[in-house]
């Protein structure tokens, strides 16, 4: 993959004042090497990354809920097993990402508090309901599919721990996308009611999935900086375009339509044109007024609060064990 970032070889950084550390940092970025946790980095870089990685982690965790709703009702035992494994994978992704964020100096408990108090955001797609079984398929195909488009370039992110976490995550996300597509494929080739269920789900998730790449480039103030730092490698619109180009033939293979009358092949551009997205809705959902924002937060807060006594017990037990070990080793030393 070629680096499409136009500023790649010019000004990679931030400040006008150039300390030796800053120069070293700039050089690492310019050479496409990696910043590691113990390297010096500008505060703004640390802050931007912490924000991005933790929001990504929160999205994985909140993202367990819409599909988690269908574990108990999955229509076959095989589908149930696949779904349990998938939702569990998302918890694992959350864990790797929190660990990556922690290497930047903010502990997981603080990041978690930011989620629970509403200070930190998560991907707005998870504020939409999973109303039918087909939604599990649409989420896998479109939402995990969009996540892959976003995350594959992040494997080359300038920050080492984030890039490495993404390598692991991407492998699993492509399974998820495949499984989502298979669910829809079975439905689309099933009874008329099943096919309708699949089409309805795609109709509902298409727009929100395209919005997962964020606002249009002209309206995305942080993107430029993030590309200069080589955290992000492609713009929101570039990624969105790739995604559309990927899903159009996949939808055709499913025999389902995408709910966009403006969707057509543009010979000149060599890409599919697509219609305007409802950005007012996007902003409303992001700012808390989506169909499920309150429900998702309440679920997470309840789980956290109801688990407090368990975490306290585990901590108390670990302290007692440590005390015993210290005493034993003291005894040994004096023996």
């Amino acid at each position: 993959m070629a680096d499409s970032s136009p500023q790649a070889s010019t000004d990679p950084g931030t400040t006008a004042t150039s300390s030796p550390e800053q120069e070293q940092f700039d050089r690492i970025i310019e050479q496409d090497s990696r910043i590691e946790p113990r390297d010096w980095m500008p505060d703004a870089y640390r802050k931007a990354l912490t924000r991005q990685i933790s929001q990504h982690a929160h999205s994985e965790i909140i993202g367990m809920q819409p599909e988690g709703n269908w574990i108990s009702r999955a229509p076959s035992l095989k589908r149930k097993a696949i779904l349990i494994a998938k939702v569990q994978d998302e918890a694992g992704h959350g864990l790797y990402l929190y660990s990556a964020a922690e290497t930047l100096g903010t502990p997981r408990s603080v990041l978690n508090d930011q989620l629970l108090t509403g200070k930190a955001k998560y991907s707005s797609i998870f504020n939409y309901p999973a109303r039918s079984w087909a939604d599990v398929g649409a989420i896998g195909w479109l939402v995990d599919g969009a996540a892959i488009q976003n995350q594959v370039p992040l494997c080359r992110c300038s920050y080492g721990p984030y890039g490495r976490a993404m390598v692991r995550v991407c492998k699993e996300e492509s399974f998820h996308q495949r499984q989502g597509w298979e669910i829809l494929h079975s439905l689309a080739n099933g009874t008329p009611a099943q096919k309708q269920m699949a089409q309805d789900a795609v109709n509902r998730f298409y727009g929100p999935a395209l919005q997962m790449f964020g606002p249009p480039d002209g309206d995305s103030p942080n993107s430029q900086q993030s590309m200069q730092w080589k955290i992000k490698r492609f713009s929101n619109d570039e990624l969105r375009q790739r995604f559309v180009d990927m899903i159009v033939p996949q939808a055709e293979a499913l025999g389902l339509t995408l709910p966009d009358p403006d969707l057509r092949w543009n010979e000149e551009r060599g890409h599919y044109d697509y219609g305007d997205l409802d950005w007012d809705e996007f902003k409303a959902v992001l700012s808390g007024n989506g169909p499920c924002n309150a429900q998702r937060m309440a679920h997470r807060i309840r789980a956290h609060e109801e688990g407090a006594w368990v975490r306290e017990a585990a901590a108390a037990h670990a302290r007692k064990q440590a005390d015993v070990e210290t005493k034993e080793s003291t005894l040994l030393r004096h023996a």
Partner: protein
Amino acid sequence: MTAGGFDSATRISVGQALTAEDIAAAGLHADEDVARYATRLGDDALILSQRLSWWISRAPELEEDIALGNIALDLLGHARSLLTYAGTAGGKTEDDLAYFRDEDDFTCVHLVQLDPGDFGHTIARQLVYSLYAYELYTALSHSDDPTLAAIAQKAVKEVEYHVDHAWQWAMRLGDGTEESHRRMQAGLDQVWPFVDELFEDDDLTDRLKGVAVQPSSLRPAFDDAIRRVLAESTLELPSVPQARTGGRRGEHRESLGFVLAEMQSLARMHPGASW
């Protein structure tokens, strides 16, 4: 004793033909009694898996979402293998048995049917079930029925981890804080009335000598293990009377109807559909 139609028995050995798909493809035909026996073990695993998977996204910490999800997934795997095998007696699939049998036809014990309580209740149930299942599958690994033996040999390795998980948590909760000690003990007291049912012999297990495990034969090892874990965890062996049960005869708790209503709803809305 062999269980009818073992032309493909050679294909069923440890490390081979262990998944539901493999068993379905092996062209086996379990006899009626063996099928009944596989069904009850499969039902236990299925309903417990259904109960346990509730925790995914609700666990006290992320690591537990994963751990409990793992255990639920293992149990579901056991259920799938056992029900697939049971289905071979009457030309049915695992899904026919899981989704299209009515409540009376399920033969799971009451322990797995109990409504979910707090994490202490869940750990208490997991501890009891896993210790029982560990002894069960260890013994069943030597069954004269090669399919049951192969399923058990795979399951026992997984259940060993489930025992470890429950044991560790019983210790943390028992020894942790005053509140966790109280809750863990309460969980044990709540599940304890349903322990005896696990170890009841009946006509079916008597008829299947050599194939099925005599449940009563597992009790001493279970008692030893549970005493050890409770002592290490500063918890007490409950002294509560045993409940009236009857799960193996299809006499269930009210809660099972709700579990099945939820689990079977979508499949029953679209009979004959494939997914």
